């Protein structure tokens, strides 16, 4: 009955496939699971040789919640947006959130997502206590940091390749108020930005910033840095913050909106809009954590050909000026991007393919053009030289030889995966591209 339909990640690069959406996951066929499809590249897309995927979003029940400890167990299709709607008013919040609430628990585990608080709290996976999984031989089992540890560490950040994640159990955190105290500061170049970012780390649990990656020379890396923490009761109003009205990006944008002058003007306007040197005050958590969620389907802004996000981590070992060197490679090639975000990263997780490690992470959106492959190749070669690596959840264009050279933990991951799924029952378009499944 089911037909083949175009399926894509958030970057709108489509493949043909068959998508099943069962209400319970136990009886689902042994194929790749996907959540809300917010990974940018091909990690949630079916491989050509196995064209069916199971979307988990209808399996979104809470299994148990303990209001004394905050421990929540839910089916893997339960979304962060749903969680925030249910638990934020009760004073609970996820220990780690990515930049969108439209992700499922299963996806958060599979990508081992991180947030503005990585330098303090690590990735989402380090807060997970138990996963209920179905593995390739059909067994349903539980794993966690102290139970089937190898499987657990390969599944966290493992992009759904070790088995199907059915349920996730982790601890929510008590928050003092549902408001964020934010300090936002304008910085005039990349070196100042990095210095301020590292300086803020011990004092602020959450930091993030935007930079104008088209500005060159003395202005290179101008932008602003936002620092935040949950507001205390005496600082915040008693009322619950109202979510702003959402609107939907109305059309697939024409290419002219993405030309270098247009993006330059946008970036300049954004930088100029922050005209005070420093802004301090309360913001609601929706705007703080999920500014882009206010615009549904904003990915259509990148036109018919879609886009990709390039995100890499440059380790502390790359030394001073790593961010500047990266931007030089980028601006020399003239990559236009509306979004360039630089975050602080804390220590690496023991999960085999978890992305962050001590250093800084740089993320930029790139509209897909004829030269996108060459641009990604050039950035990858640079990042490789700096000892960094890329984030699988964003990737669509990295070559397998580059990934293997960056990801020294890959053989260890593959060994565990081979033990649990010797025939690679669970594969994705991305695992075929990068791991040769």
């Amino acid at each position, binding site marked *: *009955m*089911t*037909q083949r339909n175009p399926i894509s990640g958030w970057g709108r690069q489509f493949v043909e496939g068959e998508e*099943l*959406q*069962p*209400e*319970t996951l136990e009886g689902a066929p042994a194929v790749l699971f996907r959540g809300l499809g917010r990974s940018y590249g091909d990690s949630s897309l079916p491989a050509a040789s196995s064209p069916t995927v199971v979307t988990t979003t*209808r399996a979104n*029940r*809470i*299994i*148990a*919640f303990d209001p004394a400890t905050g421990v929540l167990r839910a089916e893997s299709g339960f979304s962060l947006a749903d969680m925030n709607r*249910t638990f934020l008013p009760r004073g609970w919040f996820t220990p780690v959130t990515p930049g969108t609430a439209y992700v499922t628990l299963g996806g958060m585990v599979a990508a081992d997502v991180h947030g503005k608080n990585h330098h303090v709290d690590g990735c989402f996976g380090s807060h997970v206590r138990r996963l209920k999984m179905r593995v390739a031989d059909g067994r349903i089992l539980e794993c966690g940091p102290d139970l089937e540890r190898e499987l657990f560490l390969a599944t966290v950040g493992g992009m759904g390749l070790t088995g199907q994640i059915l349920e996730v159990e982790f601890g929510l955190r008590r928050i003092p108020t549902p408001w964020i105290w934010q300090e936002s500061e304008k910085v005039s170049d990349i070196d100042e930005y990095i210095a301020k970012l590292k300086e803020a780390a011990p004092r602020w649990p959450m930091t993030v910033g935007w930079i104008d990656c088209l500005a060159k020379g003395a202005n290179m890396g101008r932008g602003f840095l936002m620092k935040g923490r949950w507001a205390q009761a005496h600082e915040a109003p008693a009322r619950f913050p109202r979510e702003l009205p959402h609107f939907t990006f109305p059309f697939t944008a024409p290419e002219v909106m993405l030309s270098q002058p247009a993006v330059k003007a946008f970036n300049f306007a954004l930088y100029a809009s922050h005209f005070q040197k420093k802004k301090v005050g309360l913001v609601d958590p929706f705007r703080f954590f999920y500014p882009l969620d206010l615009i549904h389907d904003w990915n259509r802004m990148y036109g018919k050909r879609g886009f990709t996000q390039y995100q890499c981590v440059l380790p502390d070992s790359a030394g001073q000026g790593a961010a500047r060197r990266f931007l030089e490679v980028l601006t020399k090639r003239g990559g236009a991007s509306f979004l360039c975000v630089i975050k602080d990263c804390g220590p690496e997780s023991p999960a085999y393919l978890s992305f962050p490690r001590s250093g800084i992470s740089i993320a930029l959106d790139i509209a897909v053009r004829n030269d996108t492959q060459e641009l990604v190749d050039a950035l990858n070669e640079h990042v490789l030289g700096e000892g960094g690596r890329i984030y699988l959840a964003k990737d669509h264009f990295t070559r397998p030889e580059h990934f293997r050279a960056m990801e020294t933990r890959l053989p260890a991951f593959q060994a565990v995966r081979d033990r649990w799924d010797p025939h690679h029952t669970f594969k994705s378009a991305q695992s075929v591209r990068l791991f040769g499944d």
Partner: protein
Amino acid sequence: MGRSLARKFVERGDSVAVLGRDLEELQKSQADLQARGSPGVRVVSVKCDLEAPETFRASLEQAEQGLEGLDTVVVTAGLFATQEKLEQDPALAHKVLTVDFANTVVFCEEARKKLLLHGKGTLCVFSSVAGDRARKPVVLYGAAKAGLSAYLEGLDHKYRAQGLTTICVKPGFVKTAMTAGLPVPPFAGDPDEVAQIVIEGIDAGTPVVYAPRIWQAVMTAIKAMPRFVMRRAKF
């Protein structure tokens, strides 16, 4: 659909009994509703199979006891199969006609008696836009739903004065497990959106609720079409 509605009920503080075929599944849904519900909300699960009319009374009784009273009964269950399948499989056709019409009506009769005993209550039943006008892709399913809609209208006429409000919900295409694999037509709704409209309908006592609302206009147009046009139409 039932899941979306039940969640909205418990979130606003209503106690809910969920009825269904698979007790293990129901208990999971019960835990979900309990966790989502406002403090003090009571959630119970009761086994009930729309294919087994002899169980209806006992199931309703169990729900009533579990909740210590009953003021609203919502029926979302039903079977669906494409016209093609129903034509090929008479046993399936019989089952769909029985469940969607005869058994649903028998269930409503039991619910009607219970609610009228309290002198006040709402019976909200999911029929379908397919019952509004006979059409080629839903000849059999549409016939069952047409019968159900007619029954619900009759019930509303007869018992509203005695305190029983009957609400006939006519969903257009809603993206749920029931419609999985079907081509998605224009104006398709999602369950949460439909649930919101239905709850507003229940609160207001609206006898016929189209959801998404645009289907009221769509069906008005389709109902107005002359027979010779419908004979040629593919929808």
